[in-house]
């Protein structure tokens, strides 16, 4: 708990004076973040290409890995934490995530529903565009 009456700037440190005195904590944080992000990225690329995993579960696993890596970036690179001086930043982020989830899941839900309820097109419509019309 700090004595600062203000919120922390996103990406900033909570006490600038302390950051100038010490040398390593910032470097350690960024390096930890890089190593974790590299590990998660490598896992993602491995999981997408391997045949040793249960194939239907891989897409879900890739999404989970992406969420984890987003969390790593937010905490170690953008310094968004759960500290009391960071509440406003976290609240703004939570609102952004809410809108993103609404836009993506809402679009997918509605468009899947429309596709399912669509009448089958007449046979001429489903012909590929670059195929010549039969005489």
């Amino acid at each position, binding site marked *: 708990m700090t004595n*600062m009456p203000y919120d922390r700037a996103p*990406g900033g*440190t909570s006490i*600038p004076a302390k950051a100038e005195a010490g040398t390593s904590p910032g470097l350690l944080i960024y390096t930890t973040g890089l190593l974790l992000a590299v590990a998660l990225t490598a896992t993602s690329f491995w999981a997408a290409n391997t045949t040793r995993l249960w194939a239907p579960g891989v897409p879900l696993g890739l999404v989970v890995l992406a969420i984890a890596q987003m969390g790593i970036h937010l905490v170690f690179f953008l310094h968004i934490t759960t500290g009391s001086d960071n509440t406003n930043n976290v609240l703004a982020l939570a609102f952004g995530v809410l809108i993103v989830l609404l836009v993506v899941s809402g679009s997918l839900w509605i468009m899947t529903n429309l596709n399912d309820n669509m009448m089958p097109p007449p046979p001429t419509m489903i012909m590929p565009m670059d195929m010549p019309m039969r005489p």
Partner: protein
Amino acid sequence: MNVAVAAYDIEPDAAPTANEAGPAPKRIVVAYGFWIFLLSDIVMFSALFAAYAVLVSATAGGLAGVQLFNQRSVAIETACLLASSYTSGLMSLAVNKRHRAGTYLFAALTFALGATFLTLEIREFAGMIAIGASPQRSAFLSAFFALVGCHGLHVAAGLIWLAVMMAQVATKGFRANVERRLLCFALFWHALDIIWVWLFTVVYLLGVRP
């Protein structure tokens, strides 16, 4: 908070509350405003992601992602962007210490890695267009070029911004307003990397699965 408890807490040497201390320093206000902008930018990207996810199978008889995407090139692009995010963080540390040579060094590394990323992406786009997979070919390709191209434009804008900031550090030094702009640039660059995480997951890894 209970009023009585609050009154009991006040001591002569206690830190002032936000109300008593007056408005927050400009650095905090500016960074918070830029954070709001970044989140709105991410909301815009979510619309492009939604369009891509809806149209991913609308290939109109043309080439699909599994034939078009080269995962090796994407892996190199990902490595470049992640490394540039790291060097951008090291640049922020150098800026905090008012270390001029370190700032230039890490800015140059960030710029070089970002430029490599952009070059690889442009080559990928040019190769796709050369074999007839241009944005007007199918709804899938329109959505692909809109989504990935929009991220590429952001990276290009970030590179220009970084070059301008280095010119400002050279001519103006570490003034308060220059430091605020450098803080905003670091936020922007890290946010671009977060968007790229979703891009390579959704487009290049999930998009090529049978």
